[in-house]
């Protein structure tokens, strides 16, 4: 084995320029994959984080049927005391749940005594909300409050677009008017406690109030919520956690015997998940390009090696080298070329990612500006890419190697 690799290595060194050129091509391919997946997966993670950490959470539970009519924020699909208790008990014993929050979602009219407009409101328990959406409080401009009390009863946080449009400032008095479940209209006065920076998507008109004010406005006795958002300790395990919670939710059914709750992942609730799919698809495409590069370049260089060394193959075959060992010699040559190129590609690729980090590239996403691109790549991803390259190397050097192994020594020896 050692000697097979020794001979293979010397033969690679013998055609230095060709070996280097092929190697360079593979290195380039590996670097391409590493840099591309490093950037795009970091971008992806960051964007997912922005959405999940300040708004959606990783999972959401509603009354069955709520999400399909989520755009009208239906109050008759709220969950009551009994279901809140059931959810609390269920979520408290989940290992992977870091925090959860209860919210009432409602639509209302907002008036500053001169102009009136509609607004979507999320009524929250500020401490619960802050634990579940840790990035939310950061998005409030000029807030002097601590994050776990970012909103108090009597206060309203207005979205940036409305604040600009209606010329609203912190401290202004406003009136909220909303329909109750039974159809009657009620209004309350609130003071602006802050302006919320917008995010992409439908959040352009989203404001926040304290849950007590929502109950007063909607004349709710007891407790009622529209949704529960859940933050996971390990978002990568979302599939398993979802399955587990879903399984436990099955025990609850409504009067008609249908499931009482529905559970959605952030991806099901956000249009951004399609972008994630596209990014994933692009990464796969780049990997396929890499596979093609490796396949073609190794096949090409190994074919050349075999044809150039016909009489050497004849010699070693004549003096008794078994065909399987001749095969091994050539496969080892391709393998070494692939291995060194992969290692070099990994080193250069990771260096390139670090250089990109040092360069502090800035970009904006939706309304968020000056986001600094921080790239990283999981070691598992590096290993996967390396294994792909090495596997393809073995596959593509096999055919030329087999050709060498099958040569008849007499014919090969006559070849000059």
């Amino acid at each position: 084995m050692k000697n097979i690799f020794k001979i293979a290595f010397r033969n690679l060194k013998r055609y230095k320029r060709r070996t280097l050129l092929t190697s360079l091509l593979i290195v380039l391919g590996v670097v391409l994959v590493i840099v591309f997946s490093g950037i795009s997966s970091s971008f992806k993670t960051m964007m997912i984080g922005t959405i999940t950490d300040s708004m959606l959470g990783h999972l959401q539970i509603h009354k069955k049927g709520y999400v399909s009519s989520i755009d009208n924020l239906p109050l008759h699909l709220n969950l009551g005391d009994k279901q809140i208790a059931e959810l609390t008990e269920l979520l408290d014993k989940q290992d992977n749940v870091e925090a959860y929050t209860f919210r009432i979602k409602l639509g209302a009219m907002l008036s500053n005594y001169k102009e009136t407009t509609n607004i979507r409101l999320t009524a929250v328990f500020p401490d619960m909300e802050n634990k579940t959406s840790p990035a939310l409080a950061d998005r409030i401009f000029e807030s002097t409050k601590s994050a776990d009390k970012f909103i108090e009863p009597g206060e309203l946080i207005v979205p940036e677009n409305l604040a600009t449009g209606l010329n609203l400032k912190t401290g202004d008095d406003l009136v909220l008017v909303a329909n109750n479940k039974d159809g009657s209209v009620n209004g309350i006065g609130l003071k602006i406690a802050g302006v919320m920076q917008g995010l992409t998507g439908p959040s352009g008109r989203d404001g926040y109030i304290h849950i007590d004010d929502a109950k007063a406005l909607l004349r709710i006795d007891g407790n009622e919520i529209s949704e529960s958002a859940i933050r996971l300790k390990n978002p990568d395990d979302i599939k398993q956690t979802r399955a587990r919670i879903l399984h436990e939710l099955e025990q609850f059914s409504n009067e008609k015997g249908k499931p009482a709750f529905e559970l959605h992942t952030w991806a099901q609730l956000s249009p951004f998940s399609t972008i994630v799919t596209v990014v994933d698809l692009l990464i796969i495409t780049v990997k396929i390009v890499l596979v093609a590069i490796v396949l073609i370049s190794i096949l090409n260089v190994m074919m050349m090696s075999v044809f150039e060394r016909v009489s050497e193959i004849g010699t070693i075959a004549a003096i008794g080298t078994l065909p399987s060992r001749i095969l091994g010699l050539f496969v080892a040559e391709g393998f070494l070329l692939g291995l060194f190129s992969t290692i070099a590609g990994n080193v250069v690729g990771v260096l390139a990612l670090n250089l990109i980090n040092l360069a502090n590239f800035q970009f904006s996403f939706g309304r968020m500006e000056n986001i600094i691109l921080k790239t990283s790549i999981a070691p598992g991803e590096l290993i996967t890419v390396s294994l792909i390259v090495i596997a393809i190397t073995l596959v593509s050097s096999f055919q030329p190697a087999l050709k060498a192994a099958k040569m008849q020594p007499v014919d090969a020896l006559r070849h000059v």
Partner: protein
Amino acid sequence: MPLITLNNVSRRYETGETTVHALRDVNLQLDAQAFISIVGPSGSGKTTLLNVIGCLDKPTQGAVSVNGTRVDGFDNRDAAQFRGDNVGFIFQNFNLLPVLTVYENVEYPLVMVQNVPENQRKERVMRLLDAVGMADQKDKYPSQVSGGQKQRIAVARALVADPKLVLADEPTANLDSVSAHKVIELMRGMQHELKTTFIFSTHDPKVVREAEIVYTLEDGQITNRETRAGLTN
């Protein structure tokens, strides 16, 4: 019992319309421990005969036994195995591996063919390198030594695994007469010392003179057998 027996061996080449009879009904018995030469005009079948004996080629007809084993029915793998275990080869073009040093070239059959453990290899390789007078050049590469030296290294490589039989197809054709003479002398010396059987083909009358037994091939048939006076037979 003879080392090599050929019974009614023929080798035909079909090239398109024409058939070439490289060997026709050759019957031959060669004893062990001899220094044998095969001569004959170009195209008479010398290379073909050596290839058939050395399991590099199969006869289209007839039976070939080497060292008591029928070799004419071997498949590729078995033939390679048999060659590795029993036959050493010396080629007209030396055919040393350019990426290996002189030492490693001689060592090659022990490593890649015979799987001899490392600690037993060194002594054998050095003994052979000494015998062919190349021990002091052992770390050079083939491109750094002369043609005559290359062929001495090839002789060492052919003998390192203690084969029963060494085949050399025109081993001196690419050498000047001084080197050619030295290589043949070396081969003969080694044959005596190691009691191996050497069979070589040649065109060179000066080289032929060194042989104990000389077979003449003409048009695929053995037409003459001569033994040198004062030697065996």
